[in-house]
């Protein structure tokens, strides 16, 4: 198994693992946030505008953690810096 194959295997595996593990936390967090917002909405329907606005802002901020993981996995898959290193290394030898 040469270097390129090893890098490919590790990259694909890591990309899957990144998005899998990285979406667990934001999933739980968004669930809690929405549940609490629904409770608050049921108790105080008058404040629905403020609650909804804050909920959306909070959801987007929680979701951005999952987005970071997605960006990392995309970088690992499509813009992997180690590819270039391995290619340059292979060309030199």
């Amino acid at each position, binding site marked *: 198994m040469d270097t390129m194959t090893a890098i490919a295997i590790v990259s694909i595996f890591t990309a899957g693992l990144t998005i899998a593990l990285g979406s667990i936390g934001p999933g739980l967090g968004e669930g809690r946030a929405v549940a609490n917002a629904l409770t608050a909405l049921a108790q105080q329907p008058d404040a629905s505008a403020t609650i909804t*606005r804050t909920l*959306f*802002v909070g959801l*987007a*901020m929680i979701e*951005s953690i999952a*987005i*970071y993981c*997605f*960006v990392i996995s*995309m970088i690992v898959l*499509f*813009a992997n810096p180690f590819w270039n290193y391995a290619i340059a290394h292979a060309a030199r030898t």
Partner: protein
Amino acid sequence: MRLSSDQLIVWQHGFVVLNGTIAFTWALMAVLVAGSWLITRNLATGQQRSRWQNLLEITVIGIVGQIGEVGLGNPRKYLGFLGTLFLFLALACICNVFPGYEPPTGSLSTTTALALCVFVVVPWYGIRDQGLGGYLKSFIEPTVIMLPFNVIGELSRTLALAVRLFGNMMSGTMIVAILLTITPFIFPVAMSALGLLTGMVQAYIFTILACVYIAAATGGQKTTPATTP
């Protein structure tokens, strides 16, 4: 697979390369500037006014209201920056309905530039409102021990602003592109509708976060009550 519109070469002459991001940004700027110029060319103050002026007034009043609700007193002072930011991001997202268009915010260069604008403008407003000493004092706000954390927070939130917007817009286009190869007919439409929603929410979030940062830097609000008409 293209990760962003940076790799889309529109025009090239020698070492001058015009990539898709710059071209679409210029197109959006042209639309915004031409639209503003056309609408504000003949503004009416009476009952009779054009429907475009109505649209303009709704937009401006809505943005001013949102800025005011976040806690910035005197929202009109910040309308120029925050309003432009929101309009650009919203238009960049809405134009996704046109085929062949790729949002310039789906490129890390654009979002980094916008985040750097926020990074520069926050101390500027802070210093203008509180003076240099007052702004620098906000870094050691609870205690002096918090100084490095405040500095790191200032930097990391700029990074977070850039990567959040980039990731959301990029994932929207990428998911549609991947789905087109798997289920080409109905499902990508639903996903692009979802992409429109998340894009608008992200435009809103970006503006509101910039607003919150400015509000934090200008330090509590000397609210001017009952001056808003």
